[in-house]
């Protein structure tokens, strides 16, 4: 469904007003535009209407989305994917976030990337378990979640999709390894603490003793995961902002639309500027993945650039999106306070997006490192 990169076009009609025009201030290739439109069609996204309920039967409808190529944006072409099309993955994450889709897309993409890289490294003699899982992921038949193994090597906190996934890939950052749990019997999940975001499922996971196989961690898996979480959050924030703009343009008080009051309009203007900046940071981080390093040195420098760009995007979105959504609740007044209105579902979800990556603080610390501030004396 993705074609090679071609001439630059705009996403959608920029001359239109509304916050979708903010999204569309970024240059994007034809195939990205096509992907976005296809996803909106498949997800039934009507941009200015918010979903007020949470989909529960997404697994039954996952295969058609997988056919669009969703699990393979960061899988080498040799393994049936699209290479490292982080731009496509980011676009998809934004649309899934905007649609409050329950899939653990960020983790799934990071997992597929990591598994495929491992399979590539192993060549044709590769592990059939990994190969089979990859095939099933590509076909939409299995879902692999992603998490970060704690210092005890046995538990992983906050695994998005952990309760229902078919397989689990846990990053052990102390050893640059991944622990693959290929079957649901390989772990147990404790979801009780993680019910705030009701659009997705999340669990603290404990590895069943003796289970799991270790594979080498590719350099980008963790950064990819973190970036897609930020993309998920900014996608939802954009949609909530666009919706709120439409609402305030129509809702009357004191004889005119409330969007005509400076107290409302100026805040929305500030939010639109911030959201544009955050979205651009996310896209820019995606761009940093795409450069193909030619040497070991280049690869190191690129990894550093990626780390920095992802930290910037994550910091910005994780510290800004929740605040903006909370103000959108204020600007929609009592109606926005209702369950049915659905704005709160975005508030809950962007919170969880930040939490899955332990942001904003983790990103700020990471930046302090990459910028060399922690060496100050």
């Amino acid at each position, binding site marked *: 469904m993705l074609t090679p990169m071609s001439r630059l076009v705009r996403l959608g009609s920029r001359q239109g007003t509304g916050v979708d025009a903010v999204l569309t201030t970024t240059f994007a290739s034809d195939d990205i535009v096509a992907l976005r439109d296809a996803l909106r069609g498949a997800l039934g996204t009507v941009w200015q209407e918010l979903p007020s309920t949470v989909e529960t039967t997404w697994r039954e409808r996952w295969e058609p989305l997988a056919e669009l190529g969703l699990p393979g944006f960061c899988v080498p072409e040799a393994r049936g994917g699209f290479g490292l099309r982080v731009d496509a993955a980011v676009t998809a994450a934004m649309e899934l976030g905007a649609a409050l889709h329950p899939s653990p897309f960020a983790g799934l993409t990071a997992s597929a990337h990591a598994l495929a890289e491992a399979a590539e490294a192993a060549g044709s003699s590769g592990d059939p378990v990994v190969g089979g899982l990859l095939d099933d992921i590509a076909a939409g038949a299995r879902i692999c979640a992603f998490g*970060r193994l*704690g*210092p005890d090597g046995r538990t992983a*906190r*906050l695994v998005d999709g952990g309760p229902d996934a078919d397989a689990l890939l846990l990053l052990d950052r102390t050893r640059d390894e991944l622990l693959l749990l290929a079957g649901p019997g390989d772990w147990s999940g404790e979801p009780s*603490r993680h019910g*705030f975001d009701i659009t997705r499922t999340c669990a*603290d996971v404990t590895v069943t003793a003796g289970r799991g196989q270790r594979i080498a961690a590719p350099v980008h898996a963790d950064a990819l995961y973190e970036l897609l979480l930020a993309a998920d959050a900014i996608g939802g924030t954009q949609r909530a902002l666009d919706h709120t703009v439409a609402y305030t343009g129509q*809702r*009357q*008080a*004191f*004889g005119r639309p409330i969007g005509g*009051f*400076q*107290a*409302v309009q100026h805040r929305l203007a500030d939010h639109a500027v911030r959201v544009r900046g955050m979205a651009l940071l996310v896209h820019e981080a995606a761009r940093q993945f795409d450069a193909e390093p030619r040497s070991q040195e280049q690869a190191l420098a690129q990894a550093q650039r990626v780390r920095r760009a992802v930290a910037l995007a994550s910091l910005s979105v*994780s*510290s800004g999106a*929740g*605040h903006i959504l*909370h103000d959108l*609740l*204020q600007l929609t*007044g*009592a109606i*926005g*306070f*209702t*369950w*049915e*209105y659905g*704005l*709160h579902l975005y*508030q809950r979800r962007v*919170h969880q997006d*930040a*939490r899955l990556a*332990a*942001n*904003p*603080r*983790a990103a*700020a610390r990471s930046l302090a490192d990459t910028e060399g501030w922690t060496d100050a004396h």
Partner: protein
Amino acid sequence: MRTDLEEYRARVRAFIAEHGVPMRGEGVRVPADADEERAIRRWLRALYEAGFLGAGWPVQWGGRADHLPQHDLVLMEELIRGDVYRPLDQVMLASHAIIEFGSDEQKAQLLPRIRGGEHVWCQLFSEPDVGSDLASLRTRAEPDGAGAGDGDGDGDGFTVTGQKIWSTDAQWADMGMLLARTDPSVNRHAGITAFVIPMDLPGIEIRPIREMTGYAEFCEVFLDGVRLGPEHVLGEVNGGWKVVTSGLASERAFVGANSLQLERMFDDLVALARAARLPDGTAALEHEDTQATLAEALARVEEVKLIVRDTVERILIDDEHPSDGPVAKLAYTETNVALTEIAMGIITSSVAIDEAGAAVADRWYHNFLWGRALTISGGASEIMRGLIGRQLLGLPRA
């Protein structure tokens, strides 16, 4: 005097410990089931009987000669500290309005039932197209027959049609205070009348609204040809605006309790920072950046506490400035929101919350969402800023 108050506080505290019904969560007041409803009504009656509630009423209606406004403040503080059910402000607003504007018959009929826990009240003020701009309400109370609109109300009935919304407690209230337009031909404020109505009248339909917190504290109330008699009018026909503005101000002495609420929230914030584990295993509170954020927040909390204390002191000597209420409300509710946002930042930055902090984190999740109820209802922050701009700063209407 200070000693008297301390003695009063001790009595209140003992009483709460013995009779208080625990709260389920900040802002949650609708009973979970019939048992809890009975318990709450019993508890309210007990508060009246013990002379803790309604003590400021005229003696004729059960008030106490030795009542001091400070007592109300102490009571509310202890109710908050004890985490027990707080008296429903609708009931207190209704009492205030009935005492101020009610006929002798209305007082005789309604006030004892409030004291007995028999009547829970709700307000039927807001409407779907009427948010902060209450004077634009559209629910009609059409006067009957020839005497219609002559203003004396004698013998005249009304037929009410319209829709109300955001009525807290309407789903279990026995009585409602209704605002409806009785004369559409005059200026927005002038043609509105206040009514006191039983909530089980024919033509009233009540639908709870589920809020984003998951609770259903608010209701939509549909009024379809509801017949009211002249005995339902509170105050004068077309004089409802006076009733509602007086009523809104009667909560004022309890503003002081917010201060305690904020103090408790700050303690919760520190507890959260202590319980929140960062990826490296340290607690958030160990780090200078968290400490800096907390210090700023504490300074803000202390500012609000002093603003509230100052306001209460002036209320107690009956010398308020019109902007005092808006200043206190804005400061309290916005600081409350700021604390919840800090808490969310601490939670998202952590990978786990220690066992000891789990309940604290749950409270924060609830308060984070609930905080927006405070900055929207009872006069949105944007309205408060306008009032402060005009009444305190003397600036022209925006």
